[in-house]
């Protein structure tokens, strides 16, 4: 069974109510986002980027077993 880890930060973690989720049987980041936005509609209203295994992705990316997907609201370090 294909498992992935979803890490969330900042405002995204506030919406999800947790910063670390384990999910199964998702083949792409698009599919993941659809599922999350259905469960947490407030996600649709905030900007965030997606990293898979610490690399930012644009568009949809396929997810391997054990992929780590990070949901990254706009950075505000410094």
């Amino acid at each position, binding site marked *: 069974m294909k498992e992935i880890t979803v890490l969330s930060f*900042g405002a995204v973690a506030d919406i999800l109510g947790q910063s670390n989720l384990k999910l199964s049987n998702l083949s792409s980041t698009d599919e993941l986002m659809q599922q999350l936005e259905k469960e947490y509609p407030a996600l649709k209203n905030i900007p965030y980027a997606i*990293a898979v295994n610490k690399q930012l992705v644009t568009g949809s990316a396929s997810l391997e077993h054990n992929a780590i997907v990070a949901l990254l609201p*706009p950075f505000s*370090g*410094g």
Partner: protein
Amino acid sequence: MEKKLKNIFVRGPVAAAFIADSIQKHSTQTGIGAHSIFLGQVRNDVVNGKTVTAIDYTTYEEMALEQMHGIREAIFEKYELTCMHVYHSLGTVKAGEISLFVFTSAKHRKPAIAACEEVVERIKKELPVWGKEVFEDTTYQWKENHP
């Protein structure tokens, strides 16, 4: 990942004494002619009548250190630097305290100054770090960086 990534994160604020120590350590490197330092300090901004008392910083550390590694390599490629040090706070940093310390040194001033500025810009833009601006009444808002 096999590569050894240099840590940049420190718990809480960067102390002035720590900065002094960093400067002092460079006195043995007598090929250095110029140091450029940037310090980010937490402001007590007022938002809708409420005052920011602190910023609480979090990061996606594994990714941040990889990004910083890439920035460091690009900067050393681009500028004739002797050395470069970066420290970023995690956790609570109160208004008036320092949360970012970027320190570049070179034989001549131009590379030291240009590298320092570029590192600061890239840190703000590229490092997965988030600042939660905490108000007096313990409510908060997520910080947005000024372009």
